[in-house]
């Protein structure tokens, strides 16, 4: 409760970082993630880029939640983190089973099915 009151005080003094900065950073990180997915060929790195996209969105959600004074955003972040963990587990398992059969994780070498 005390932290909250202090924060309200700092909002009055206008030393708070404006919402736009968070959003720009989040958009930048998201673009980095998209670029990584498009450019990189190693399945694990592509997957890491996807995680970066999700976390960029988390930043937006937390910033929005804070500025709207509403907890929905933060709550959604929890769900996103859990879903990302589930995806990570499944994704790594898929990558391992592919590696066992093919000894590579380069997505350009996945050519049994026409891409």
């Amino acid at each position, binding site marked *: 409760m005390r932290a909250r009151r202090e924060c309200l005080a700092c909002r009055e003094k206008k030393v708070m970082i404006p919402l736009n900065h968070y959003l720009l950073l989040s958009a930048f990180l998201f673009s980095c993630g998209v670029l990584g997915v498009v450019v990189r060929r190693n399945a694990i790195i592509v997957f890491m880029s996807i995680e970066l996209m999700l976390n960029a969105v988390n930043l937006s959600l937390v910033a929005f939640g804070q500025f709207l004074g509403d907890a929905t955003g933060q709550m959604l972040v929890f769900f996103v*983190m859990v879903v990302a963990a589930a995806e*990570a*587990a499944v994704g790594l398992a898929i990558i391992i089973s592919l590696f066992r059969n093919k000894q590579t994780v380069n997505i350009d070498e996945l050519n049994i099915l026409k891409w």
Partner: protein
Amino acid sequence: MQSYIPIFLMIGVSAFLGIVFLVLQRFLGPHRPNPEKLSTYESGMPPVKSARERFSVKYYMVAVLFILFDIEVIFLYPWAVNFRALGLFGYVEMILFILILLVGYLYILKKGALQWD
């Protein structure tokens, strides 16, 4: 931009101090190496071989399971913060949640995912 000046000052000062100490110990400190001192963990276990090689796939299994159960704990935080407000309802809810996790745990236990050999 005004408000960032203290941060930039801080970064500048800490970087400067770090460099100063690194350079100073080079010139001031005694320099008498021996094999024991140069080993990776001076007072730890002697390394068996290089760490830069492939790990057994068994580690991944444990790591993947760890990620899952580790992250689920995140739901305990908001519950713990509002424990009093949520009362019995929240308690029962959380027990159900843990029970569902327990079913998953029993499954991996029975399937032998945690057996090393």
